[in-house]
């Protein structure tokens, strides 16, 4: 049971990692191809601030770096699954859609469809975007090296 639960959490985490980095229009576009279950907003989408903390030198004493805007929402399906959505920025609709996806990922009925038709294509697009960015950056890379100077 514990193993099964952690497996479910891994899936939710993986889905959340993709959804949080996707555009709201893309999520909505992919979701529109699936027949959505009946659901209600357990927590209306809302904006807030979270304190971002850093560590001096990467591993030293923690300090407050600054505040970041986040949006969050909670959605409950009629079958009882509750999904949570958190995302940076003020896009409330995105937080709601992420929460809806999170709830559907947990449901036995919709889990597979969400994985195949929403998360997978978004993940592919995200990896493609990252690779392109990395390639663009790599193209401008400069290697510095010092020639041995002849002394005397």
């Amino acid at each position: 049971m514990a193993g099964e639960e952690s497996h479910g959490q891994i899936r939710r985490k993986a889905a959340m990692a993709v959804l949080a980095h996707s555009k709201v229009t893309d999520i909505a576009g992919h979701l529109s191809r699936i027949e959505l279950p009946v659901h209600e907003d357990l927590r209306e989408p809302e904006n807030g601030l979270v304190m971002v903390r850093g560590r001096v030198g990467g591993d030293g004493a923690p300090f407050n770096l600054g505040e970041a805007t986040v949006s969050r929402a909670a959605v409950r399906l009629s079958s009882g699954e509750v999904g949570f959505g958190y995302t940076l920025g003020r896009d409330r609709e995105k937080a709601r859609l992420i929460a809806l996806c999170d709830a559907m990922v947990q449901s036995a009925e919709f889990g597979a469809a969400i994985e195949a038709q929403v998360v997978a294509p978004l993940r592919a697009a995200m990896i493609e975007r990252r690779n392109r960015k990395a390639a663009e950056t790599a193209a401008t890379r400069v290697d510095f090296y010092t020639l041995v100077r002849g002394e005397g």
Partner: protein
Amino acid sequence: MTTVAGLPAGFADKVLSAQSTFRSVMDAMARPGSIQRIASTAGTPATMMRGTAAIALTLFDHDTPIWLDSRMSATPDVGKWLKFHTSAPVVVDASIASFALVGDPENLPVLDRFAFGSNEYPDRSTTLILQVESLSAGPVVELQGPGIDGTAALRASIQPRDLFERLAINATLFPRGIDVVLVNDDSIVAIPRTTRLVRRG
């Protein structure tokens, strides 16, 4: 997860519902003894009336410690619901509570247990939210004070029976004191600390 799955929802439209509820509470406080309606709807835990839930969603936040009476804290539902939707801390010590939710006003503890505020900060007092039997039937009480033109008659069956006698301490404590909001379903009546009982009908 199973705990959150059973929670009643919050306001369907957070901003407008909170604004209209705030307006109702403000009008009730400004016109003591008058009955105000709370139009907004929200999911409510089993022991909470609609008005109580709407007031909680509107006025409670992480800065307002909440005290629950034995009826409200009989099941963890109310505490969990408050925590999820309002992030308000639920406290055992009534003397530091900003609000007290009372589902069984018959057994209301003595008022000394709640916060009266200080002379410098009279606002740091506990506001009692009492769920009463009826705000339309029962004996008549006549009230007087700021916000009332002459006297206001309130027909209600309020527990505890000696509520107004107990609230007489407000006269001696002023500016400290206790404000009360009576709730029945979606009707509310406020008895702020300046309101005095004139006579019982």
